[in-house]
Structure formats: C-alpha cells, structure tokens
C-alpha cells in the first residue's frame, strides 16, 4: 500500500500530470496577462494545450547532419530535469514530495540542466540560427546563474538550512520580501533571465535568429521543450514565492502569490525592450552581482551585531 500512495502523488497529484497541466495553465496566464497589458485579446484558455497536442501529432524532421540520439534524447532530459526539480518544491502549497538538506542547490541546477539541454540542442543541429541561439543561451546562463543562486541562498542562510521545505516553513513567519528587498528584486529578475522573458529573450529573438536554439525542432521534440519550459515556469514561480513572499502554506495562498508574481513578470515583460546579449551580460555582471553582494554584506553585518 505504501508504494502506491507516493507513486500516485508522483504521477498524478502534485507530480506529473497536474504539474504539466498547471504549467500549461500558467503559460496561458502569462500570455493572457501580456495580451491584457498590450490592449489585445490574447489566446483562448486551452491554446497551450492545443499547441502541445498539435506538436505531438506533427511529424518530427531530424536534420541529417545532427546526431540522431542526441537530437531525440535532449528534449526528454530537459523535461525530466524540470519534473524532478518539481519534487523538492512545495507545489500547490503542500509539503515538498521529497526533501533533503541542500536540495535548493539541486533544484536550481536541475533547472539549469534544462537550459543546458537547449544550448546543446542548438549546437547539435548545426543550423546557423540555432548555433547563434545556442551560444546566446549558454552565455546568458553564465550571466544570470551566479546572482540568481546567491539571491536564493541569502534566505537559506537566514533560515539556517539549505532545504527548501525548511526555508519555506521559516519564511512563513518572516516576510523576507520586506527584510531582504534587494534579494527579492534580483531573484525576480533572475527568474526572468532563466525563463528567457522579454528583456532577456535574446536567445530566441525571432526577428534576428528565427527560433534560436530550437529552430530545427518540430513535432515531439519541440513539444517536450515547450512543456519543459512551462514546468520551469511553475517551479520557478513557486520557488521565489515560497522563499520570498512568506511561504505557501495552503493551495489558496499558493495560487494568489504565484499569480501575483506572474502579474509583475508580465508587467515587466510588457514594459521593456529586448536587450542585446552583450547588454544582458553587462547588466547582470555589473548590477546584478553587486546588488546581491551588497545584500550579503548587509546580512553579515546584521548577523555580526
């Protein structure tokens, strides 16, 4: 009996299917909010689902010079990375399905695994656009990864543990967004960098390099990559909401906080212009890192006195 319940919770409830459905719903919410900001109607509620089903049905063309095994396996690894990252995160306000001390670092690197898979997919297909897209994806990973991780480690240090579950319970009592506003801003903007939202969507700037790293993908491969990005959206939102916005104790709070975060993200997306890749790297290394280090300094001083 005790093997069915975790299996069920893994496959059905907080795990696989609901997570995928939730990811698609959040992707729809993001596109709908962006449309709302731009005074237009936006997609129907089931549009991401319809896209995924259509892509799954479509024939997948594998470019001949690309390595066939890599081409087909990379999307699966990306999706797997996203889904396993969801294990450690308090989805839907419930306790994380599985947790061990230090799983914050593991979650973040599982999410970066996803972006690395996209970079690899780009270089593997040897198409000009995807080569440029892959270089940009990897450059961007190296630019936002450090500040984003540091911004998430500050609450871990204040909470005294590196396990997301414990940080979440600690965060329920202290609203870290008030205590560490700079850390919150950097984490939020880092999340936009990870999800490649507008100011940082140079890797898939369709006016310059068509679809960036995923130019050669169609059919199943593209569907899995899109699903992985949707899952990453949900996991990222819950992570930042759980840590900074005073924890997600029950599903209602979880919904309110993640949607509030999504609203701010969509607002920032609507507001800003796409940055060139050298400008994003410059922005991150110049401002992002200094802000986060400042926050660390403040934290150390407070701990000292």
């Amino acid at each position, binding site marked *: 009996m005790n093997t069915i319940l975790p299996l069920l919770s893994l496959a059905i409830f907080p795990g696989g299917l609901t997570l995928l459905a939730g990811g698609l719903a959040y992707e729809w919410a993001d596109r709908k909010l962006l449309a709302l900001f731009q*005074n237009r109607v936006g997609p129907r509620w089931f549009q991401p689902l319809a896209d995924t089903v259509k892509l799954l049905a479509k024939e997948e063309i594998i470019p001949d010079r690309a390595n066939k095994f890599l081409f087909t396996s990379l999307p699966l690894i990306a999706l797997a990375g996203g889904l396993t990252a969801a294990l450690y995160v308090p989805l839907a306000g419930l306790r994380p399905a599985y947790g061990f001390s230090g799983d914050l670092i593991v979650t973040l690197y599982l999410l970066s695994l996803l972006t690395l898979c996209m970079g690899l997919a780009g270089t593997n297909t040897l198409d000009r656009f995807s080569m440029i897209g*892959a270089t940009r994806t990897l450059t961007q990973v190296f630019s936002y990864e450090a500040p984003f991780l540091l911004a998430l480690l500050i609450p871990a240090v204040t909470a005294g543990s590196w396990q997301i579950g414990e940080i979440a319970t600690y965060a329920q009592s202290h609203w870290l967004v008030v205590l560490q506003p700079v850390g919150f801003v950097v984490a939020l903007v880092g999340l936009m960098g990870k999800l490649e939202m*507008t100011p940082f969507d140079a890797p898939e700037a369709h006016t310059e390099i*068509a679809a960036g790293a995923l130019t050669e993908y169609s059919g199943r491969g593209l569907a899995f990559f899109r699903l992985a990005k949707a899952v990453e959206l949900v996991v990222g939102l819950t992570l930042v909401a759980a840590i900074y916005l005073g924890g997600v104790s029950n599903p209602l709070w979880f919904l309110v906080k993640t949607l509030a975060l999504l609203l701010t993200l969509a607002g920032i997306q609507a*507001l800003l212009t*796409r*940055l060139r*890749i050298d400008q994003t790297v410059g922005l991150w290394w110049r401002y992002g890192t200094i802000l986060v280090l400042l926050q660390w300094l403040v934290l150390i001083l407070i701990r000292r006195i």
Partner: protein
Amino acid sequence: MATNKEPERFTISIGPQHPALKEPGSFQFTVDGEIVTKAYVRLGYAHRGIEKAAEQRNWIQDLYLLERVCGICSHIHATAYCLAVEELAHVEAPPRAQAIRVLVAELERIHSHFLWIGVSAHEAGFDTLFMYSWRDRETVMDLLERLTGNRVNYSANVLGGVKCDIDAEQTTAILDGLNFLEERARHYFDVLTNDSMFLQRTRGIAVMSRNQAEVMGAIGPTARASNVARDVRIESPYAAYTQYPIKMALDTRGDLEARFVVRVNELFESFRLIRQILATLPEGELTARMPRRVPAGEVVKRVEAPRGELYYFIKSNGTDKPERLKVRTPTICNMTSVIKLAVGHQLADVPMILAGIDPCFSCNDRTVELTDTDRKTSNIMTWEELRRYGIKFYEARK
C-alpha cells in the same frame, strides 16, 4: 563558449522568408562571432515586371497598376503618375483637387510613419510599442476609408483630378482623428527619445555622416537624419505644396535615434499641414477633362514619398498606351547605405538597421541588387577624393 577554436566565419542569411522581413528580400551577412563583416543583398523576389506591363495597358488602367507598386505608399505613386500624365497632356488639375491630393498624401505619410514606428519597435523586441502604434494606426486608416472609400489602395486619384470630395462632416471626422493621433505621436516621441531600454538599441547605432549619406545617395528621412537637406516638397514643390509650404525636419546625429526623431517630426508637420489645408480648402470642381490619347512627349516628375524621393519618367508616343514608363523608388537609394552601415555592427542590430531605412521591398523590387565585395579601394569616395579624381581625370584627357 560553443566554438573555442578560431571562430569560423559563416554567413547568416536573413533570407527571403524571415520573421524580420515583412517582404521577401535576401540579405547575407558574413558573421565573425556576432560581428557582421560583409553584407550582400539580393532582391527581386517580388519583381512583377511593372514597367513592361505598363506598356501594354492604356493610360487609365496604368494608374491602378502603378498604385499597386507598393501597399503603403499607393497614393503617392498614383499622384506622381497623374501629375506626370497631366503635364504631358498640358492639363492642369483644379486647385481643389490638388489640395485634396496633398491632404491624402499627408494622411498616407502619417499612416506609413505609424506603421514604421511599430515595425522598428518590433524589430527591437519592444512589442508593446508595436501593438500600441498599430492600434493607433487604425484611426488614420479609418479616416482614409471614410474619405476615399478604401483602407489601403485608396484610389483617390483619377487622371485630371480626384474622385472624393471633402464636406463639413468629413472635416470634423479628420480633425478629431488628428487630435487623437497628435497626442499619441507626442507620447511616442517621448517614449522613443527617453526610454532607456529602447535607446540602448537605437542611440549611436549605424551612424551615417552627412558626407557618407550624400556620396552613397541616401535620400528621404534617412538622409535628413544625417543633415542632408533634400526634400522634394521644398526643393521642387508639386501639386498644392506651393500654396501650402512645409518646414523640413532635419537632424544632425545621423544615428538610428535621429531617424526616429526625423520621422516623428515629419508626423507633426503633416498634422499642421492637414489642418491648414482643411481650413483653407479652395473651391471649385474636382476633375479636369483629360484626352484619351496623350500627345507625344517626355516628362520627369519627382514627388516626396514617405521613404524619400520618388522619380517617374514617362515617354508617350501619342497613342493611348505609354511608350516607356520608368519608376525609381526611394528604398533603392537607401539600400546602398544600409549595406555599408551594417558592416561592423552586431548581428542583433542588423534587423534594426534594416528597419531604419523603412525598406519597402515591393517598391524596391522593381530594381535593386548590390554586392559589397572586398575591393582594395573603398568604393565610398569622400567629396575631396572626388574632386581630386575629377582633376586627375582632366589631366589624363588633355
């Protein structure tokens, strides 16, 4: 990085079908990492042999053929053609018709510049500005539909005059529309010149000096942004521009931001001009009698299209079909300069540089293709070199 060995130079082709280009035109940029080192453009994908077709239609049918050279500047093509044929036939369109022609031309300029603001913002990835400027462009298209009966190919012109008249009700509708558009244009001017994120993509990019612009033959707003004072409406006023003079919008910086500034200033100039025309519209009928057979002769007519100087040459042999009809559109001349400017910039800036000259490939595709080969002598000659070249040429001949 992906490739750490000597980065092999490969060519990115922003090909005939590419999201950055709204119309087919193939650009090939040899890229070293992200920096463009060589540019090559090949057009002709939307070539329809309009000049040959024009020789097989009679004068009236040619008017509607030439309106379809370009979707956005269809009225200015028709106006240039009508003025040229009327000059051949020694017919003078009545003053009211000339004023309405200028009014519809200025409305079309507003329509074209709003569309261009959206397209360039989209190239830069600023989709909100794209959505809002195209929403506001609907207002000017509705005005044109109410005035002339069609949103895009207005066919307001007929040989010898104009089809549509302006009554009091039209005037109030146009004036209200203009107030809304002017307020929006002021807001966009503020956004385009102050938004720090957008300025990172436009300020100091693709700077073209005045000398470079003149030697490479850049024309229209792109040239005026580099302080080249050349505007056909002021140099050789046609239609009613003699009664309604305009002020030229000039800028000295010559970079992408200057091109935005010049075009939006032209918008304000158009608003003022339309209000002035509506206030003092001359009375009189709308068309003058036109013979079906145009007497033999040649005529050169130049008008100011939203993208620059549009040149028409018509030779007639007295029959009801033109002997030869040559259309030289503005985007051709700017294409020379855009290719030279793209070299040395980031690949990410290239769509913005291409959009900077407001390319209209369907206009273009009547003519151009141009290659920038690695030649020993740079083929841009400054005025000084030209002067020395001329003198050297003289001595060699003596």
